[in-house]
């Protein structure tokens, strides 16, 4: 089981290639919002960039908050999303502590699925798919992700 992490985000140049790739390849949209990873400048361009991305919580508060089962816990962290079950209530976005879930104008949620399709489009190797293997130490993983 792998999760997407951003261990080298200090290298980010703000090209948005990751967000555009996620929207294009996963969600079939031209967008820098409808994506599981979204880039914003942190306090203006002169202080660099930050990524809004799912940290692969386990247990995931968004899955716990989802009233219809559209979000369910993903093995290794994060969530599995079944959009046909989603009623656009927005509870998942409310529950996410790190603002990783984007709601479009209709309330449709977009969150990282940890598929890794964005990774090859980053020109500075900021992103990485981390193999969790069989390691049971969920707590250690979480610490590494947020370090």
């Amino acid at each position: 089981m792998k999760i997407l992490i951003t261990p080298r985000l200090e290298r980010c140049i703000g090209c948005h290639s990751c967000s555009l790739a996620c929207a294009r390849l996963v969600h079939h949209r031209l967008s820098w919002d409808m994506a599981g990873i979204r880039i914003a400048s942190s306090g203006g361009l002169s202080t660099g960039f930050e990524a809004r991305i799912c940290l692969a919580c386990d247990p995931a508060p968004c899955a716990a908050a989802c009233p219809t089962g559209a979000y369910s816990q993903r093995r290794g962290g994060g969530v599995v999303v079944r959009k046909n079950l989603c009623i656009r209530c927005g509870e998942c976005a409310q529950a996410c502590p790190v603002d990783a879930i984007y709601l479009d104008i209709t309330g449709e949620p977009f969150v990282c699925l940890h598929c890794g399709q964005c990774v090859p489009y980053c020109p500075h190797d900021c992103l990485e798919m981390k193999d969790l293997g069989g390691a049971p130490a969920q707590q250690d993983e979480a610490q590494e992700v947020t370090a």
Partner: protein
Amino acid sequence: MIRDYFRVLVVDLALGKGKVTKVPGRDEVAGGSGLGALLFNRYGKTDRPWDDPEQPLIFAIGPLTGYFPLMSKTVAAFKSPYHDQYAESHAGGRSALAIRFADYDALVLTGRATRPSALVVGSRHLELKDVHYLWGLDIQESGKLLRRMFKGSGHRSILRIGPAGEQKSAMAGINVDTYRHFGRLGGGGVMGAKNLKAIVIIGDGSFPLMEGKDYPRLFESVHRKLTATDMMQKYHNLGTPANVAILNELQALPWRNLQATTDPEVHGISGERFAETALLRNAACAGCPVGCIHIGFSRERFQTDYRYFYRQVSYDHEPIFATGSMLGVTDCFAILDLLDVIEQMGLDVMSAGVALAWATEALEKGVISAAETLLPLRFGDHNTYEQAVRYLAYGVNEFYRLLAQGTLKAAAHYGGADFACVLGQEMAGYATGEVFFTSQALGLRHSHLDSAGYAYDQKYPEKDVTKAVDFLMAEEASRSFLTSMVACLFARGVYSEELLADCLRVVGYGALADNIDAVSRTIQKLRWQTRLATGFDPHRVAIPKRFTEITTWKGKLDAEFLSTLQNTYARRILELTGEAKG
């Protein structure tokens, strides 16, 4: 969004209201440069001055903006305070993708705001906000406040002017997202004349993509070409400053108001020196994985104790030439200090540097005196230049006000036109020879990027007028199409006509894909017709004597060849538009 027409937001700044307008012509002019000219013909007043409130300020993107890498630039079109004629200026940053995701092909701003204002547009937002409290603030201060005042961090573009724009200077640029600029031909002055301090474009829309795998496959292939080959390496690595040492070695780098074309002191301002000592990091325009923006630092000790503040300053070949070699400043940190002041004032760096180089030589020669300059301008004295930049931005006396309208305007009044380094506007940093001087002097944007004159000079040693002008005309047509997509011209080696056709076809612009040649010629002709309609006469462009006095690696410049080139290129421009006489 793929449409067979243009969706244009036309805003009347006097009323603070806008109208979404459907403009036909997609298959004829594509977008970008072509769309800018089309919209100027629709909304512009050729017979009224540039600062007539009705004149439009246009920002146009292209059919491929956001759909492919490096389709990341915006074309600004307006009647210029520099020459009171039609003008284009190009910039990147986030501007292009923000306009795409605000779901417009172009913004057209007419009228004059009654109060100093900020215009905010998005896919579901239009607001003209009174920001009189920002008037007078520099680029950094106003940027910080604008970021706090408006939403959309990361997915918005903030265009703003500094004091120079507020003064309606013909050398005022429009700052885009801190590190990029619509620098040339006075776009900042146009915003100042419209009482418009800032434009915030919120890219908050999204669009469904075409069905099937063809589009993502082609995107992947283009992305690979742009990043996995060495084609873009020069823009990514040292960036454009790599040119500084190369041109100096060629005897083609303008030094001290083009009194020389090479100098051993170049090592202090080379791309290598900047990268090794002053480079902090890189940044990119949205939608471009190359990351050609090079950001260095300017540090100031403000107490005798070790107390500093620092600012991040972007640099490129042209700013280094304009504030370095052209002003005899040979230390990279002195250049960054000077660039920072120019940035904060909202001046176009190339125009400001070249104008101050002329003023320095004019002072040396006694053409003007300290009564005009107020400062003892001296090549290499960057501290004095920092103050001169402020004087130029604020137009503190008649001399600086005149100089800010263009070096030749000041020279017409005081004398010294022979050594004004002006080719349509203040020169770019290439003293490569006759073909480049002709191409910038007569180019539509008076930019080194209009056609590749500097490349021709380096590639072809023979003095063949027909071959050279054929090259310039063909290159200009091809670049007109690229700047109508709107591609960054750094990608011109990757985006061949065949690849552009594939890209256009896969997103649904089949008619454009099938007619690239014809559309290129249409755009080229329309742009020139628009320029000529506002008063341009290519036969009347003066190339000052200084350009004929230089020596490059090819030897002494050939004034007769230069003159024949100019006449021939001027005739070809007029023939293209059907205005040739006899």
